């Protein structure tokens, strides 16, 4: 035990005496570990955020869309594009027939439009939503001042608008906005409500938004294209039953023959999380591969530097052997040195990776995360790289002939 402690001290000593060389050797390991830990940290932060925010959205809410959340490949895209569009009538049909649902909303979105009030205008609005009254409970956005859209607004295509707090700041710094008339897409709208202030999401403010009746939305942007149907089940126990019910209604309304696949997609927060996990798995595998390759290269670098170190210290090895060092003493001394070298690199890599990952995470307004599992895996793998790359040089050192080593100058 004493001997190993000493080998350890000797190794620390010889590494600190060669600071520049040690540092250069470390770079490969640092990059390898920092990249994997950085990616894993960001992923963990995103994942925590996704799970939290999607569960806030409500475990009872689900959506019906024409195409999946994200297209998988070009061939699939073609298949989805040829589907019949989803229309407001479909939402109406569901609202009429479904028994297990609480709210059925029809909605559509666009981005980057400007609202004007007298001489003022907003930054391009992040989210423009055409909606029905159910938009509010289904999305979890509630009106703070004034009122939300009503069924009458939708039925009579009234030019009314509900806005976010950022729009209020831009247009009405000193004026009570309710009842004021703003210009949007060349038409006059009456402001009827303000949505309560929201937190921001992935660096995007959710207060920079406006909501108008979906019928008005279609007058402006056209009736072509598919809308979204958001549905909330009466309770989370009823969620699966509600989904089955909606599938049955949608197939009937869209005249899908028995045995054929659905010509629409249904997803909820759980399937979004599943989708995210799927996507992040590929990203993780990619980053593991990159890290693995850079760690292998770094391992070769360590082996090389250890070889040089053994040659340089031939005399020292000879002296130690003359004084009674056995093969195992020399072997452990050099092995510990190699492991220490790669573990130091690993530790620096972990620290850099966690910092980097969290910088990215905080740019996206996510909370700080540390991927403990990957930290441990990374450090274990670094030790392994150290042992693997240090073993051959260490063995070479332990096998040196004491007489010849003593003669070495």
């Amino acid at each position, binding site marked *: 035990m*004493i*001997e190993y402690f*000493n080998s350890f001290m000797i190794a620390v*000593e*010889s590494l600190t*005496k060669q600071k520049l060389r040690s540092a250069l050797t470390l770079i490969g390991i640092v990059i390898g570990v920092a990249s994997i830990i950085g990616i894993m940290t960001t992923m963990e932060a995103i994942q925590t955020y996704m799970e939290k925010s999607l569960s806030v959205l409500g475990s009872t809410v689900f959506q019906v869309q024409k195409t999946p959340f994200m297209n998988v490949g070009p061939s699939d895209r073609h298949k989805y594009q040829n589907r019949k569009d989803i229309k407001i009538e479909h939402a109406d049909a569901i609202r009429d027939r479904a028994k297990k649902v609480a709210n059925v909303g029809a909605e559509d979105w666009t981005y980057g439009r400007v609202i004007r009030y007298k001489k003022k205008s907003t930054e391009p609005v992040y989210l423009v939503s055409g909606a029905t009254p159910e938009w509010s409970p289904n999305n979890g956005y509630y009106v703070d001042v004034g009122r939300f859209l009503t069924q009458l607004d939708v039925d009579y295509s009234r030019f009314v608008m509900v806005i976010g707090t950022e729009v209020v700041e831009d247009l009405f710094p000193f004026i009570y906005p309710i009842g004021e008339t703003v210009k949007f897409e060349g038409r006059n709208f009456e402001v009827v409500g303000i949505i309560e202030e929201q937190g921001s999401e992935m660096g995007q403010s959710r207060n920079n938004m406006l909501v108008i009746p979906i019928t008005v939305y279609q007058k402006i942007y056209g009736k072509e294209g598919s809308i979204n149907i958001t549905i909330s089940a009466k309770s989370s126990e009823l969620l699966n039953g509600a989904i089955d019910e909606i599938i049955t209604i949608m197939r009937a309304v869209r005249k899908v023959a028995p045995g054929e696949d659905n010509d629409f997609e249904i997803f909820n927060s759980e399937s979004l999380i599943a989708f995210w996990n799927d996507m992040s798995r590929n990203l993780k595998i990619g980053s593991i591969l990159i890290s693995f390759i850079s760690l292998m290269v770094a391992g070769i670098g360590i082996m090389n530097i250890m070889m040089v170190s053994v040659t340089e210290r031939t*005399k*020292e090895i*000879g*002296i*130690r*052997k*003359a*004084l*009674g*060092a*056995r*093969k*195992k*003493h020399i072997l452990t001394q050099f092995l510990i040195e190699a492991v220490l070298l790669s573990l130091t690199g690993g530790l620096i890599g972990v620290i850099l990776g966690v910092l980097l990952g969290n910088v990215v995470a905080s740019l996206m307004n996510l909370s700080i995360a540390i991927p403990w599992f990957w930290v441990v895996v990374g450090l274990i793998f670094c030790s392994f790289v150290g042992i693997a790359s240090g073993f051959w040089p260490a063995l070479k050192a332990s096998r040196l002939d*004491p*007489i010849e080593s*003593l003669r070495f100058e």
Partner: protein
Amino acid sequence: MTLIDIEGVKKIYDLGAEKIHALDGVSLKIERGEYIAIMGPSGSGKSTIMNILGCLDTPTSGSYYFEGEEVSKMDDNQLAGIRNQKIGFVFQTFNLLPRISSLQNVELPLIYGGVSLESRRERAELVLERVGLADRMNHKPNELSGGQRQRVAVARALANEPSIILADEPTGNLDSKTGEEIMVLFNQIHEAGNTIILVTHEEYIAENAHRIIRLHDGLIASDEVVRMHTMN
């Protein structure tokens, strides 16, 4: 008591084209407490017999008993153990590790002997005091004079209380005055009861010893007791 007993020891280096007989059948007995000088011109086999006596090398043929144990058949690790426990080396070029202090250098054989931290520090300090370096313990070799360095090396050789001190040209890198001081140290160590073998080509250094063995072409040319040693 016989400390070293070698019988018909040959060492042949096979260089492919030719075979070099560095030792060509050497027999020798060394008793505990002796003070021996091994002399001879270069190429006489001085270094070879030194390496074999010091268990750094094994003979091609012949037998070597060290305190009754046959070392000529030992493997590397067993030889390392003998070197560590029974033999203290002093080299011409000191062979101290440059980056560690005198004290740490002296501790090295104790580390490989598995001596605990506290008692090895104590022992290392003790032997450094014995060689007159109590005030130089934390100096590194490059902060010491040649004579002081060789004293550290002697202290290191003494650290494990070996059966024999093997000194290879211990004054070869020192000026004559410092060399004499080192020889005074060796004489003191011998008087304290240690067995010493010096390898040297300087007559005046060899004169310190009580027995002088002269090698020539891998054979013992002469082996004479020049002074009766007082130790038993």
